[in-house]
């Protein structure tokens, strides 16, 4: 699942989007509320908040390696690393 | 050398668990400052970037074997600031940086009066604190350590500014010109502050590293008149250069409006930019039109003094 803002895109590996535990962790970790727990219990992206990303990397730390990608659209799709 | 703080200065952060305070703690630690504890009532037992948190200032002192810290950075909400400062003063702390904005004037006057009675000094309120480049910083001044390192290099010029951001802008200009900064003090933008230009001048005067002073000033208040008087009354060895912002506020269509800091309200003719510039210049303090003119003028003034 990938969702694009103007500056930032967030990509979540499709194999983990249904993970309720991870959804909760990501929601708690993100300081600008990009992640939410979906009605189904999985991860949901809050479209309006994606461009508020402060590049803190806390979501990368909360998820299994490589499962969440923060993409800088303005920087030739460079990935945020920790 | 430096003024107000040095490499041995110990201090605490009151309100350490607040969002901005957490950042400020990280920045100061990274810069090499010695933070010996934090206070947030009800949060005893926590840690902020390794700094232990206590309920009272007394507990911090106890934790440190009875050693009273030299200073405190107070960053608590306005309604609780007076109490926090009183607590620090009663504990015997002598240098207090008050970061909080929007504190009622009565409370500020009370803090300052108690500080005077206790032989202590308040910097601020509504300020970013003090930085001695390459040595220590007390407050958010200059931001994260790596940013502060770019703007502030050790040198010969003392900086005092009513605007926190402009303290960095001016210091960066001095650093880029190779002059550097001895100590920079963000003195605060409110109508009543703990330490005015004139009150800090004797400290710079006694600091051998400092060879000149740059001040950033704004309309509102009588602080510049006080400095002009100080210069007339004291045979200072330090040349002073001033920059005045907010000249547009002198225009008729801007009368009665407030801009910028709480203290930037023109309440009388003496408060206006034009009047202040005249006063400063009459006291031999040149007022530059542009920040980028400052370094050359500082160099010229230092050369002038050493030739005399």
């Amino acid at each position, binding site marked *: 699942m990938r969702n694009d803002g*103007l*500056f930032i895109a967030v990509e979540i590996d499709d194999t983990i989007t249904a993970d309720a535990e991870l959804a909760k962790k990501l929601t708690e970790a993100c300081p600008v509320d990009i992640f939410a727990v979906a009605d189904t219990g999985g991860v949901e992206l809050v479209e309006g908040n994606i*461009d*508020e990303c402060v*590049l803190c990397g806390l979501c990368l730390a909360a998820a299994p390696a490589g499962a969440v990608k923060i993409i800088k659209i*303005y*920087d030739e799709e460079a990935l945020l690393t920790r | 050398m430096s003024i107000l703080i040095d490499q041995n200065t110990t201090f605490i952060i009151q309100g350490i668990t607040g969002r901005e305070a957490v950042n400020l703690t990280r920045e100061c630690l990274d810069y090499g400052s010695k933070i010996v504890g934090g206070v947030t009532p009800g949060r005893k037992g926590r840690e902020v970037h390794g700094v232990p948190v206590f309920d009272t200032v007394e507990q911090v002192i106890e934790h440190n074997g009875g050693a009273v810290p030299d200073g405190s950075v107070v960053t608590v909400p306005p*309604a609780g600031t007076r109490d926090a400062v009183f607590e620090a003063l009663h504990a015997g702390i002598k240098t207090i940086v008050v970061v909080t904005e*929007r504190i*009622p*004037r009565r409370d*500020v*006057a*009370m803090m*300052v*009066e*108690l500080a005077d009675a206790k032989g202590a000094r308040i910097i601020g309120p509504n300020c970013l604190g003090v930085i001695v480049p390459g040595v220590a910083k007390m407050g*958010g001044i200059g*931001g*994260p350590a790596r*940013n*502060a390192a770019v*703007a502030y290099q050790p040198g010969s010029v003392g900086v005092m*500014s009513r*605007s*926190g*951001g*402009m303290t*960095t*802008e001016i210091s*960066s*200009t001095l650093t*880029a010109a190779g002059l550097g900064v001895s100590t920079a003090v963000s003195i605060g*933008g409110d*109508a*009543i502050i703990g330490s*005015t230009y004139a009150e800090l001048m004797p400290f710079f005067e006694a600091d051998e590293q400092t060879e000149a002073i740059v001040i950033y000033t*704004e309309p509102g*208040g*009588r*602080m510049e008149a006080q400095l002009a008087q100080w210069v007339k009354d004291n045979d200072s060895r330090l040349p002073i250069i001033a*920059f005045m*912002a*907010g*000249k*547009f*506020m002198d225009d008729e*269509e801007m009368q*009665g*409006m*407030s*801009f*910028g*800091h*709480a203290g*930037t309200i023109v309440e009388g003719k003496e408060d206006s930019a034009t009047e202040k510039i005249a006063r400063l210049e009459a006291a031999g303090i040149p007022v530059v*039109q*542009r*920040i*980028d003119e400052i370094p050359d003028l500082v160099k010229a003034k230092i050369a002038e003094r050493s030739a005399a």
Partner: protein
Amino acid sequence: MRFFEYEAREIVKRAGIPVTDYGFTTDATEAKEIAQRIGGPTVIKSQVLTGGRMKAGGVKFADTPEEAQAHAKDILALEINGHMPRGVLVDPKAQVEQEYYAGVVWDGTAKKPLMLFSDMGGIDIEQVAEEHPDHVGRGHFSTLEPFSDFQAKQVIAAAGVTGRALQRATPVLARLARLFLENDMTLAEINPLAELKDGSFVALDAHMEMENEGMPRQKALLGALGIGAQEGTREGHTPTAFEEAVKAIDAADHRGVIQGKDTGFTGNIGLVIGAGGGSLTLTDAVRQQGGKPANYSEIGGNPSVAKACGLAKQVLRLEGVEKIAVMMSIVSNTRVDIVARGVIKACLELGKDPGETIAIFRIPGAWEEEGFKILDSYGIEYCDRSVSLWEAAGRAVAKIEKAAA
């Protein structure tokens, strides 16, 4: 916040300082009734938050209730310096023996409240101080020690007042000093303070200003005066649509602080600038290089993308604004990349090309590397700290004036 005279007199009265038996009304018929109750000659005074009402015809004397009604009707319809009156005060015409001045203000240099007293009341105290300094007594007082009446007595005596007047005026000035501190005032003034034929003292006019920062803890007094939160701080002018919009954007999001003003600005250069001191410096720099700002603004405290975007959009919607200059003094808390995203977003959402619309972007400091990458990708002209505030403002003026010509 400034109080109307009828409110200021109520504050004085609550502090135990005698006032005349006045009445406040918004209705001319009621003014007549008040005058009837008072009996005898009255003064009808416009209630406006501006000076010069006497000159403007906002103060009139009446011998009969009918005359009071007629004057009230005129004054209620009289605009003074752009202000319509809140109502009128109907005041008994006092038999004045002597007019005095009593006031308390803050002295920022001494960092203490300062009492002023003069036996030359009814005129501007600054004028008295200049022309008759020996008729003005002054004295600071502590904010920590309880106020003692002798402190007021000394100030009155220093103005050359003695005898019964000194004794009668002392509790008035003492009460004024106490109310000044207790109510978080920045100005508390009774002028004139009148000594009547019978030797009693009464406040004939009062001027009070409360510090905005003190208002949250003065709700009891404000409530008793019928002043609700909706009145705000009664700034000198009515906020414009731009000012209201910026305020609403700021209030909607706790991250960072934005402010905007366009009252008094009529130019074509949209300013998205910060922080406090940087904004003052940049506004001067634009004007001194021949530019005409369309507005003043302040960005500070690390705002969100949405907040920076909101401010930029409002500036771009101002009449005559085609381009904006985005400039700040070196930032250490506010982030360059976040502001860059916000202003670009504003352009795009209004269907404008960011590279064309943003004349210059000069915000050096925290996260500038990231910010510059964003600006590069949209072809926006930007600069780092090696370009001074003055130079950046000059570039903005040159670009915008050239485009407008």
